């Protein structure tokens, strides 16, 4: 299976997605990028946005927060702050977050770069959620495809946790 990608999308709460895929489209810091099988090894930071993984006819579309991408030997790992699919998105809540962030950004001017950055992230994450929601809410096929994907929360490929396990144990 070396000609296909194995995609992992991991948040601090859980493994959102762990499955084979043909391609994955994601918002890198230096611009949107698509990872195909045979991609060179890379570490890249990820901006909040929509991530699309394709596997044959099925697609998975989730809205991700800030994070990191690692690609190595067709293993694609996404470590992100959050990742939600269409069915988990509450558009009202996302719109409220957008309003709040825009409001704060307007009043903030250029006081504090850190806070500004935090609200910009909030804004971008919420916008990505709306985007993913709007794109998928009417699309029955895609939606079903997502359902199909989310069933694969457990890895269909052999999970290699043993080698890296134990390093995080507290002394």
């Amino acid at each position: 299976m070396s000609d296909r990608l194995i995609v992992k999308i991991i948040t601090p709460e859980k493994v959102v997605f762990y499955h084979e895929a043909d391609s994955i489209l994601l918002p890198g810091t230096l611009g949107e990028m698509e990872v195909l099988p045979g991609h060179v090894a890379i570490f890249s930071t990820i901006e909040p946005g929509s991530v699309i993984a394709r596997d044959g006819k099925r697609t998975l579309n989730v809205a991700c927060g800030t994070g990191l991408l690692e690609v190595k030997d067709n293993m694609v790992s996404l470590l992100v702050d959050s990742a939600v699919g269409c069915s988990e998105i509450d558009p009202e809540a996302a719109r409220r977050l957008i309003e709040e962030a825009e409001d704060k950004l307007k009043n903030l001017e250029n006081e504090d770069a850190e806070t500004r950055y935090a609200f910009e992230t909030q804004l971008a994450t919420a916008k990505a959620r709306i985007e993913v929601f709007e794109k998928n809410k009417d699309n029955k096929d895609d939606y079903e495809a997502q359902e199909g994907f989310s069933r694969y929360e457990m890895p269909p490929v052999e999970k290699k946790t043993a080698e890296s396990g134990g390093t995080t144990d507290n002394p």
Partner: protein
Amino acid sequence: MANLKQIRKHIDSVKNTGKITGAMKMVAVSKLRKSQAAVVATRPYVDGLINVIEHLIVKTDASQHPLLRNPAEKKRISLIVISGDKGLCGAYNHNIVKSARRFIDERIDKYDHLDLIFVGRKAYEAMRRVEGPKIRKALVEGAWEKPTSELARQITKEMCERFEADEMDEVFVLYTVFKSAIAQSVVLDAVLPLQSIITNCDAEGHSLLSEDEKASLDSTSYIYEPSNHEILDVILPRAVMIHVQRSLLESSASEHGARMTAMDNASKNATEMISKLTLQYNRARQAAITTELIEVVSGAEAL
């Protein structure tokens, strides 16, 4: 007879208490299961982060990053004390408070400043009287109502900023590790400097890996986008965050475990008490009947 009535009332109230403790136990069991799963679920993220940090430390002079600085003199300290918001969980909160007091008593002389950050009201309330010119206290309001990653982010954000700005030298977290429902132990972990998290790196942020291990990490040449430093910017605060989040989750599992055990004991005691009281009640009832009989018989004899 008044005595009989009293005992019956007593039995009823013990039964009610038993029902409550029984219900609380069941709730604790289900919550415990959830929070244990949550602890396990952070593993892949932690492993991923550590993997990346290890790569970056080999590749770059990671000690350049402000979050990786390791102050020689540790004078300004933060201690995050994680306890519960609610009681009725055995010695869980008490143990945390005891350890926090010991920490302060033993170390306060060495420090210039000690910020105590309380997560959970119980420890905050218990340590209200702990004061001193060096001590500053803060409570994270409504901590346990929030999902843990959000809470952890909120707690660590300010901490990272202050650490980077050289206003803080060391951050500890005091929490309870869940071993089993009956065994939990209080643990003190250093969160910052980050060297405590990245196990194979020395105090200056240089890698401790052998050349072979370095070579094996090095064998794949990664592209770093946008740059090493910016990746560290993204990843290091998250490493701090996940550490605190893990402590929160462990604590939460411990709290539910402690409550489960405590409520189990309480329910058992209630059952025991009910059987004792029932015996007492029956004896009293028997005695009353006997007395009445004697009265009737002696009344009849008197006629």
